[in-house]
Each structure stands twice: as C-alpha cells, then as structure tokens.
C-alpha cells in the first residue's frame, strides 16, 4: 500500500529562506515558517551516556538486530493537543530504556528508534533513524548462493555494517557559528553550509521548539565534509542595490525587498541538491495525522546525496526534517550494494550494468570495504589481474 504522504520529492512548501549569517566558513541559512499550526511539538531529551544500544528487532535484552552509537539526545514529539512537556520543557522525564554500567562507562539500552511512550507521544532518535535506515539497505546480502561469495557473507550478510561520521563539536567553528547566530522570531529551521556545500537541514514545526533545539545542532553528526580543509572565511556575497532605479524612498524599499528575495533565491539554488530532487522514502511510524518517514536521494555517485527523516502532516506540509549529507565514500558503498541487489547479487551481470569487468568489480568491492563478502580466491585472482 502506498501512502500519498510518502515523499516523492522534497518541496519546501510554506517555508521561506532568510538571508544567511556567516561565521568563519560556516554559512547558516534560517528557514522561516509563516503559518504555524501548533499541533506538533518537539522537545529535547538528553542522555548522558557514553554509548547507546538500540534494539531494532527483538526485545531490549534479547538477541536481535542492534544499532550501536553515541546518542547524546533524543527528540520527543507530541501531537494533537498533548503539549505540556513540549511547551514548558522541564518536566520529570519518564525513564527511557535501561542503563547498564560497564566499568567507568554507562551504556543505555533503548527500545526501537521510534518508541511510542504515550497515546500522543513518540520518542525518536534524530538522524540515527535515518542512518539506521541507510545501514540496513541490502542488509541481508546475497539471496542466491553464487560461487564467488564467502561462507561468512552467505550466512551473515553484511552484519555488522558500520559507517563513521563526524560529531558537530569536532569543529569548534560550528559552536561559534551557533553561538553568535541570531534566531529570527518565526524561525523553525536551519540549513547548514560549510564552504557553500549543504551539510544538513533541520526543520521543526514550531518556532519555540526550534529556539530550544538550536544548540543541539552541535551534538549532531555530520558527513566528512564538515572537517574538509578550507582556507579562510566564507566569502561575503556582494549583493548590491541598483542606484539607477531609485528616485524615491518607496523605490528604495522596493529595491531592498528585491535584495532580500535575491538572497532567498540564492540559498534555494545552493540547496538544490536536497530540495526538488527525487527521493525514495519508507514509512517508519504513523502518529495521528502525521507520518514519520525516512528517505534517501538517488545514491548516484555523481551527485550530492542526502539521507534524512521527515514528518509530513495530513495536508502534506513538511513539519519536520533532518538530513545528513553522505560522503562520497558512503555514497559509493550504497551505490555498489544497490546495483548488486538489482542484479540479484550476480557479479557478472552487475559488472555488465556498470560497464566493467567482474575482476574490476571485485576490486571495487574490496576497496569499498566489502572484501569480506567475497571468497579469498576470487579476490586474489582479481588483484592479480589488476596488478598486471
């Protein structure tokens, strides 16, 4: 069953971009919402544990699929009138999951990525939701026992699959940028650029929630682009007024509005790799009239690729969005897996699809970190061929 609310293409309807604020190579673009419905609220729940183990399948302490990561905070969403916690922030928090002591460390066991806590309350782990979806792409590995695959690959698939990312506080500049950022009164979100590459988008439903969640952006994780070396500051853009078109104060006001519009258009253009491109979404949770889903873009190595999660309301407006930009290596891995899956994991067929030889494909698989899937003899043969 396909839901009409599953996103085919990200459209920022009802949202408006304001001129960016620049701080040492970071460009922060405010996202404003003119009409606020107020029936979906978000609030922060912090975990001060060294790591979290999330049971994706199976019970909390039972064997099953687990997601392990450092999770500094979760988001609690409430909808349709149940808003006390969202509005006042401070409330005794219900115990969430279980804490285990492991030597000097504490580890939190959490149940599911998105966990219904009350009739109209859902706890979710932002970005981890999308990342888990990304990791579980083609998780099972080959379904037909082709001769090239190793025994381990056949029995366990891609388990365990891991990706690394960069925490926001790894870049001190981001902290400075968030500290000196001036939040607009209608602001519900932020687009984060580094050297004019879109790293992340974060949008919520209500301006007050955004104000409370703004500083959590430094705890989120970002793609490797965050740390990519860059010289100096973001260039200030020289948008100017046209003096020849001004003969009264009203003209001046008009020109100023045009300048503001130019800024919005420019940022819209810069974010073109995320907004307006086709995405593949899967449904995660239905909460009242709201649909929580995760999505990824085409995973084509030639384009910029984002994964993320979103909530869409009954009328199709985007109420929540959080994205993560994949690094090129991550994109390559996902691309290879999806190509393999589409050809039923047959190496020869896949190589044909990619217009290459099966030996080269084997080397590419090994370079991407999936060497453990293939038999040693196959890999060695491929490498011998490659060296020649």
């Amino acid at each position, binding site marked *: 069953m396909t839901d009409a609310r599953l996103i085919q293409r990200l459209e920022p309807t009802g949202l408006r971009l304001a001129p960016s604020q620049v701080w040492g190579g970071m460009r922060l673009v405010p996202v404003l919402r003119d009409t606020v419905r107020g029936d979906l609220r978000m609030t922060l729940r912090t975990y001060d544990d060294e790591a979290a183990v999330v049971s994706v399948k199976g019970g909390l302490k039972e064997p099953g699929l687990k997601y392990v990561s450092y999770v500094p905070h979760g988001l609690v969403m409430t909808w349709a009138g149940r808003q006390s916690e969202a509005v006042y922030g401070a409330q005794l928090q219900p115990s969430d999951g279980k804490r285990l002591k492991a030597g000097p460390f504490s580890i939190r066991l959490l149940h599911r990525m998105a966990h219904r806590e009350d009739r109209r309350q859902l706890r979710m782990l932002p970005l981890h939701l999308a990342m888990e979806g990304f990791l579980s792409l083609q998780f099972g590995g080959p379904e037909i026992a082709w001769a090239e695959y190793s025994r381990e690959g056949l029995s366990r698939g891609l388990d365990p699959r891991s990706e690394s990312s960069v925490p926001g506080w790894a870049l001190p500049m981001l902290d400075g940028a968030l500290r000196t950022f001036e939040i607009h009164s209608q602001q519900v979100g932020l687009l984060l650029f580094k050297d004019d590459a879109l790293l992340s988008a974060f949008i919520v439903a209500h301006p007050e929630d955004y104000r409370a969640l703004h500083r959590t952006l430094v705890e989120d994780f970002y793609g490797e682009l965050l740390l990519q070396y860059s010289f100096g500051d973001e260039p200030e853009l020289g*948008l100017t007024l046209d003096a020849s078109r001004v*003969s009264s104060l009203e003209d001046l006001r008009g020109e100023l509005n045009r300048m503001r519009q130019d800024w919005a258009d420019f940022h819209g253009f810069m974010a073109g790799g995320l907004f307006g491109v086709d995405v593949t979404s899967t449904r995660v949770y239905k909460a009242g009239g709201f649909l929580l889903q995760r999505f990824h873009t085409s995973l084509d190595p030639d384009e910029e690729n984002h994964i993320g999660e979103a909530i869409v309301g009954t009328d199709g407006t985007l109420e929540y969005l959080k994205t993560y930009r994949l690094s090129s290596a991550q994109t390559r891995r996902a691309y290879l897996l999806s190509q393999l899956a589409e050809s039923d994991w047959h190496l020869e067929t896949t190589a044909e699809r990619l217009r290459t030889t099966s030996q080269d494909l084997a080397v590419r698989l090994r370079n991407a970190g999936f060497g453990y899937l293939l038999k040693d003899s196959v890999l060695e043969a491929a490498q011998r061929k490659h060296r020649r």
Partner: protein
Amino acid sequence: MAALAEVRVEQVAREDLVMFVNACFSCTGQREFYGDARGQSVSIEFLHQYILGNYRRLYARTLAAGINHFNQAQIILNLLASGSPVEARDKAEEGALIAAALRALPSQRAFRVLESLRNRRINNRRARAVARDYVNGRANLAFDAVKYRAKLRAAVSHGHLKLEGEVAPFLFHGWKKRSFTQPLLETFRRAHYAQEALYELPYTVAEGLAVKHGVPRDVFLRRIEPRLTAAERLRLQESSARERGTPPPVELGRASLTKLALYVLALPHEVRRARQTELQTALEHAATRVLRRAPSRLGRVAAILDNSYSSSGSLEKRRRPLGVALATHYLLSSAAQEYRAWWTGPVEDALLVSARGQTDIATPLLDALAWGADLVVIVSDGYDNDPPKAVAELTRVFRAKLDPERRTALVHVNPVFDSEGYAPRSFGTAVPTVGVRDAEDVPTVLGFARFAEGAASLGELEAYLASRVEAMLARDAQGRQGEDGGSRDAAQADGGEA
C-alpha cells in the same frame, strides 16, 4: 608631486587619529559578543604603540577627548614609560594633561595606574613626580590607605615617597605594631580583633575581615548597609537578593544613566512592569543630568536602536550594547525637540526591551527616513544580517540619489570594538561610525562624528583636540581650587567603573 605626497601624509595622519580616538571610546580590552578578550587587548595595544610612536603630541591630547577610563589609564602609562618629550612646551602640556587625567580618574583606577608603574618597572623622575603629586593631592589619605592598601603601598615604596603622620607606619609596619590616633586607621586595627569595629570600615575592606571573623553573610550585609556607596548598592542587588531576601535600597536618583539602564535590563520583566513609572522617571532624570553637563539641543531626531541577540554582549560586558541603546533612547528623547525611536525587534515599551532575534536595521532606517528626521542616530554593533550589508547599500544609494545635499545627518554610534578592524565596525562610508562606552559619551561623539566622516581636515582635528585640552586643564584647575576650600567626602568620590 611633493604637494600631493604632503596631502596624502596629512590624510593618513587624520585617518590614523580618527581610528585611534574612535577605538578609545569603545574598547576596554574585554570580551565582546563576536570577539574574544585576547584579540581585543592585542589590537588596542598595537594601536596605542603605533599612535604613540608616530604622533606623540596628539596621543597625549587624546586624554582630553572624553575617551573611556581604560584607555586613559593606558595612555598615562605609555606616556610615562617613554620618557618626556624634548620641547619644553610639549613637556609642560603633557605633564599637566597626565596630572589632570589621573586626578579625574575614579580612585581605584588611578591607584591601579600607580601600581602598574611598579609592575611595568617604570621609575623615571617624571613618573615619581606624578605619583608624588597625586598622593599628596588626595583629600583623605588615611581612607585611601585602608581601602587601597596594597596599591598605595606599591606606589609609595616604588616612588620613594615621604608620607606625613601615621600613614607610612600603617602601610609598612602593619596594624600589629602600635595603636593609632587617626580614627579610621585605629578602627581598621581594632576590626582585626573585634567584630563590632567592622561596620565602621568601607564595605570592600570589611567584607574580607567579616569572613575572617566568621560573620554570617546576611548579618554582615544588613549591618554594613549604611556604609555602602551608590555603585556598591547597584552591584549588590542580585547577590544580596539571593543571600538574604531584600537587596539594599538603591537611590535611583544618584546612579549614572548607563548604569541605571543596565540595572533596569537586569531586572525581570514583571519587576520592570510593576515599577515602570519609577524606573522611567529615574532614567529621564539621569538623562537630564547628563545634558546639564554637556548641553546639546537637537531638532527632529530619529533613533534606530539595535535589540538583536548580539546586543546581549558577553560574559564580561553583559547586556552592555543593549544598555547603551536604552540609555541613548532616553538621552536623545530629552535632548531633541521631536523624537521617535525604532527598535530592530518589536518592543511595546522601551523599558521592557530584551535582546532577541536577527538584526534588520534597513527596514526601521527606511521608516525613519520617511518620517523626515534631521538627524538619524543608529545604535548598533555594526553587524546587520537581514539582509547582510543592506544598511551600507541603502545609505549609499540614499546619499547618492535622494539626499546629495546632506539635509539628513546620519550617525552610527557603536558600543562594540571590533578587534580585527582596529575600530568599531561600520556600515560603509556613507555613515560615520563613532565608538562609545557609555551613553553619556553620545553628546561628545556626536561632535566627533564629523571627523569620523572624513570631511574635516587634520588641522581641524588638531584644533578640536587642543580646545578639549584647554577645557580639561581649566576644569582641573577649578576643581583643585574648590578642593582646597573643603575636603571632599572620600567615600563619595569612590564611584567609578563596576
């Protein structure tokens, strides 16, 4: 060619000096919203050394330009550190300026300068003479000996000063050796042994001794209250409210305008709402008092006041940009015949203002221009981000197309020093930017704005500084005559920077 080079030399000199005086109005070497303390102090130190090396006479005369205390202290120290000028006239003027500026500084700052002489190992004949004259000119040296004991001792021993009476033994042999006939010194001695004597000492001295005696904080604060100075009362509002419930009563009529504005901004919204009329009257009175000292009548004035998030300042200068904006609001409203204010974020009443949101200066500026003001004063830290650079563009086009005859005067008053630009950040060349630390400086800097704009020549700037020097020296001579008649109440003289 030679003439052209001369014009350029003069232009460079003027720009250097304008930049320096401007910096001296706003920079205090402390952390700002966008810049850290280290960068601030490196930047201002460089400026001082550069101007001292190149324009020594004008550097000394800057002391009279109405700049802030931090920079006055720096100039005094740098002048004393670099020997005296060769020409006799310069030497006399510089000496008189140093002495006058030192006397005009709040006591704790002046003693700090004397103490820094030792720390920086400045001990030439002139420095010793300056220290001697300052100490000899103090009205109540026993009070200074108690309140600024370490600093005074440093100054006396470093400068080999001879002191009359019991002060020298008090400073160098301590209170254990003997009893004193001077009442305050005797009280200080007794306060080391008896709790009761504590409450006759100045608050800052008694505070440490109270801890030694183990007096509970609330008892101490209640009993010392009559001894508190006005500045100490303002300063103690928050901590004493935390510790014993009722903060010491403040005489709002006595506090200076900017301090009062900062005090108001520190109050919670409900309190501000409840005491609205009282606070408003106090601010208006303070504004009138400032104008009585520096009268300036203005016509139709519009103020653009920045209450964006960045006006919340830093940990060291909490809410200062916003406080300066609020104080300027009251100052201009009582100086102008017609007055209107626009805040960058909507404000129902100026008293209830808080630092929030983005900086959109262009829209209120357009409104102010449409209202038809003679003078538009923008109080802002110079960052506009909605959209960026809009004010620079707006004023450029406005000057070029709509107001080439300059019927409307535009001035940007900036309370924040930008360490990377060595000057308060500006909105482009069409608006002159002047730095301030307190709103009380605004009448002074409005006079200085024509230099910042670049229209006036170096000769005019020199004449301006020379006239300020004369005024300052005359004021100082008058003050000394008045002082000889009756001794000042030393406790009252102790206001100064918080």
